[in-house]
């Protein structure tokens, strides 16, 4: 139902498999789940997977029923000493499904379908890439930052959260060769206030200082709560900068059949977040129609 083609189509068909839990550790108020995934083909930054609501138990679980969409946080490949590729999922315990996922023990298996959806387009060039992550949206940005760095782009990452402990994944970003700005609403770490404030300031400065190709190539990549992404889209639009977002609508399947994740399009009608997205150019979305 969609003409959207902003996101990059997958290189390989999704797997339907069981992932084995390697570790499942707290990271501030979030958790990092490391999984061994036999046959994992690698994901494009921004792609996601559907993860069963908890490890498989001796008795089949029927409640909660649906898998949870999760960003591929770190795509680790085959790490030394391992037989299978591994990936990481960065998540927060917000309900029944994520509570069960948080209880998954090393060695247990979790049903997994993925990689799914279209990922972020990564173009080389001198234009600054400003990556804005809020809450669990941070999880979609780590591999994107690495891919942009590999493409030779200057990268600025801005992470926002309520408090220091909510800045999940912060230490992993600190280990990358890029500039990192953190904003917390309570001022416990980094800039006090919302992440959109440093974004507006840094974007204005970048646009003012740049010219030619480095001016035209500036992009904002925003992933987080809908109001945050909408605000980022507004800031970028005002300065004539392209803004890419990754939507997080609820979905039951992740591969285009439940039709539950429809997002309203600016031109009318809907796009499925799971197939046309989750990555969209912010201008494609009718933001006022998102719940």
């Amino acid at each position, binding site marked *: 139902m969609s003409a959207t083609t902003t996101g990059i189509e997958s290189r390989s068909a999704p*797997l*339907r498999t069981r992932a084995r839990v390697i570790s499942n550790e707290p990271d501030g108020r979030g958790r990092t789940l490391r999984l061994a995934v036999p046959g994992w083909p690698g994901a494009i930054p921004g792609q996601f997977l559907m993860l069963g609501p908890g490890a498989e138990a001796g008795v089949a679980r029927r409640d*909660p*029923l649906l898998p949870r969409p999760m960003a591929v946080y770190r795509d680790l490949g085959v790490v030394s000493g391992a037989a299978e590729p591994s990936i990481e999922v960065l998540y927060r315990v917000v309900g029944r499904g994520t509570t069960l996922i948080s209880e998954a023990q090393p060695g247990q298996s979790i049903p997994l379908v993925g990689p799914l959806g279209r990922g972020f387009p990564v173009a080389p060039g001198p234009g600054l890439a400003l990556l804005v992550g809020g809450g669990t949206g941070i999880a979609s940005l780590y591999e994107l930052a690495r891919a942009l760095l590999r493409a030779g782009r200057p990268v600025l990452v801005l992470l926002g959260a309520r408090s220091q402990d909510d800045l999940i994944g912060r230490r992993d970003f600190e280990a990358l060769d890029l500039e990192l700005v953190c904003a917390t609403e309570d001022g416990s770490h980094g800039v006090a206030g919302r992440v959109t404030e440093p974004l507006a300031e840094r974007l204005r400065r970048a646009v003012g200082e740049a010219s030619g190709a480095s001016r035209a190539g500036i992009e904002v990549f925003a992933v987080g709560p809908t109001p945050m992404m909408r605000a980022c889209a507004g800031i970028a639009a005002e300065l004539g900068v392209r803004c890419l977002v990754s939507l997080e609508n609820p979905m*039951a399947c992740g*591969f285009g*059949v439940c039709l*539950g994740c429809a997002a309203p399009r600016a031109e009318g009608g809907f796009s499925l977040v799971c197939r046309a997205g989750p990555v969209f150019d912010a201008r494609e979305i009718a933001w006022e129609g998102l719940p």
Partner: protein
Amino acid sequence: MSGAETPGGAAGVDERVVLAGIPLRNAVLTASGTFGYGTEFAPFLDLTQIGGFVAKSLTLEPRFGNPPPRIAETPAGMLNAISIENVGVRAFLEEKLPALPEGVVVIASAFGTAPEVYAELVARVSAHPRIAGVEINASCPHVKAGGIEFGQDPKLLAELVRTVRAATQGPLLVKLSPNVTRIADMARVCEAEGADGITLINAVQAMEVDVERRRPVLSNILGGLSGPAIRPIALRMVWQAAQAVKIPICGVGGITDASDAVKFLLCGATAVQVGTTNYLDPGAAAAIARGIADYAQRHGFARVADLTGALDARRG
């Protein structure tokens, strides 16, 4: 994933069934609205390993569905209010059908707002050589009668089935709503008007509330409940319908594994449809088909068809 450990050693069991005149290689179909147009499942499932699939309900013109939120999880199930979003009959016949591999049994699903609209749709799809049969979705809102459902009014249902029957010689299934007082009456209407089979049940009308926001969770307020939560209701209705009519029944509602599917067969279904489970395990339908054959073998049934109605319902 349930497929990985299911033994495939049911040699000697005849898995074939005939549903509404449609020969199927096994008794497992997938339910309309949960299986897209089939191709979405190609990465997960060999479409020739299932009996067939019922495609997303079609309307004469392409149709967008409801605004979000369209779905919500509920205990052992989910709510949806998509509202027949589909590509329209033309794109289905010209683009979706040719993309499917040969040998896949496709049952089209038709939705309309009036009997004549259903009839036109059914005539168009059933004329296509790749369409094995048509299921009419008689369980969604009926605009002409002011929101009442075809499947809830025996007179409207009779008129609908009669009109559609006149439009096709091909296999015709009627998918019934569970939102009725006496399902047996609705089944009898279908049989009397010449339907070749009935499919039941569609989703159970339901709602859910977000207490913190004091709002319904769905933009449409009401939705359809599906998943394991509704399976015992579906089973009861299949049982009651099977007592009432001789035409074959396709049982659907909350089937997650072969054991669930066998229950429907025992209660009188000739075949089953797997629905919501396709979302969480897109390979489930093929595993369920293998599991039914295993069950038949373990219990000494030479043919899966012999499981239909094999429930021992004597008291005590």
